[in-house]
């Protein structure tokens, strides 16, 4: 089997998987909320409503597309693309499992293994902000504009805490390569970065909170804060463009769940079994990822929404100083030989 074909298989597998997860999330969002609120949720299309995402997708294509009066046509169409592409690109470097054999070629189960994949993920993922700003601005609606601006201010504020909590992991592993970070956590469960006491759990907590803010999810969903801003930056969006914003959001959530797994929970590593077969590793990775995806939904129906000034205060006045101190303490403990 020629090498380009092997690559093509990996690309199709990983992107097919991503789209499937995003579609499943659109169903899970409704199923889980129904379950938590003692309702049934979608149950008409297919067994247990399983084909609902397919029906939604087809329906979205044939819905009427509205471009509000006075909106900027080009930017209005560009914004959903700009919000969906970055998280899809970020998935390319996630190391889902160790070495696999496809058609006689031993390769790794990720589209690209970069030396600087950590920076790549955060740099590319950070570009998702343009879709939100431009979507809000080009709609010619004040709800959209305010939603987009709030969301972008929130995303930049929490990106700092996100980057600083990743930094703890980078100091511990001494590399920016996600695959090496995963390999570094092989062995007993205490090798996972979340158990690198005392800084690991703090970094983990900061990271998870920041991922909620970065993906504009509850309790930080000011981008689409219904009581105040209707639908936020996508108030004016309909048909497939609306669906693209959601695809982008679910892809971003998937990327964040993957990153939490990679940075703090040892990626695909199974505790005390470093040489597990790749299929088991992949299953392990996906179940950890699935837990964090479920956490997004669980939190949504458990916690009330913040107020915007509280959100900014939490980001700038609480999380940022703790995160900076945490990095410094990590460095100090490391040079004292604490993590040996």
């Amino acid at each position, binding site marked *: 089997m020629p090498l380009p074909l092997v690559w093509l298989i*990996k*690309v199709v597998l990983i*992107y097919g998987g991503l789209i499937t997860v995003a579609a499943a999330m659109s169903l899970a969002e409704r199923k889980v909320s129904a379950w938590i609120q003692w309702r049934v949720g979608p149950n008409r299309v297919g067994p247990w409503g399983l084909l609902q995402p397919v029906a939604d997708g087809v329906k*979205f*294509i*044939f*819905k*009427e*597309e*509205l*471009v*509000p*009066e*006075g*909106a900027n046509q080009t930017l209005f*169409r560009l914004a*959903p*693309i700009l919000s*969906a*592409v970055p998280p*899809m*690109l970020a998935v*390319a470097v996630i190391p889902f499992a160790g070495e696999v054999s496809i058609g006689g070629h031993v390769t790794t189960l990720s589209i*690209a*293994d*970069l030396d600087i994949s950590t920076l790549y993920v955060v740099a590319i993922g950070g570009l998702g902000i343009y879709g939100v700003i431009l979507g809000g601005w080009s709609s*010619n*609606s004040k709800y*959209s*504009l*305010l939603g987009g*601006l709030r969301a972008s*201010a929130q995303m*930049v*504020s929490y*990106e*700092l805490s996100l980057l600083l909590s990743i*930094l703890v992991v*980078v*100091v511990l592993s*001494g*590399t*920016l390569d996600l695959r090496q970070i995963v390999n570094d956590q092989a062995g007993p469960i205490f090798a996972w970065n979340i158990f690198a006491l005392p800084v690991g759990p703090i970094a983990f907590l900061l990271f998870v909170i920041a991922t909620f803010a970065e993906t504009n999810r509850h309790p930080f969903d000011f981008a689409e804060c219904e009581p105040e801003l209707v639908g936020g930056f996508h*108030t*004016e969006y309909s*048909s*497939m463009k609306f669906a*693209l914003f959601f*695809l982008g959001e679910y892809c971003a959530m998937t990327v964040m769940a993957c990153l939490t797994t990679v940075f703090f929970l040892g990626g695909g590593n199974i505790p005390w079994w470093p040489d597990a077969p790749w299929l088991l590793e992949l299953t392990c990775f996906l179940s950890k990822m699935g837990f964090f995806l479920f956490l997004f939904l669980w939190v949504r129906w458990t916690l009330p929404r913040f107020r*915007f*000034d509280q959100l*900014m*205060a939490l980001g700038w*006045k609480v999380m*940022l100083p703790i995160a900076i101190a945490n*990095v*410094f303490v990590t*460095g*100090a403990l490391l*040079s004292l030989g604490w993590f040996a």
Partner: protein
Amino acid sequence: MNEYIGIAVSFLLAGGVAGAMVFLGSTLGKKNPTPEKLAPFECGKEPFAIPMGRLAIKFYLTAILFILFDVELVFLYPWAVVYRSLGFLGLTEMGIFLVVLMVGYIYAWRNGALDWN
């Protein structure tokens, strides 16, 4: 270097899928616009203000503080990678760097730059 070909392929694929979705939505969907449908959403009232006012300064302040801390992080990442070989000297260097930055942070806090009201 070859690894980046994978990234380029992903870029084309993701852009293609997203572009195709927008294109399909705008061509296959039915078209029946009316002035009411095209008006920006306004809870049933007449839209009364075009949202083109000037923004409050706080958005701008947040963005520029973000840039400053982002630049700081760009220094921190290489430091974190080679930290083990730098040892105690690296810790001192970064300690001084962070203390100077924290002076700015405290100044920002004291002057209300971190408040949202």
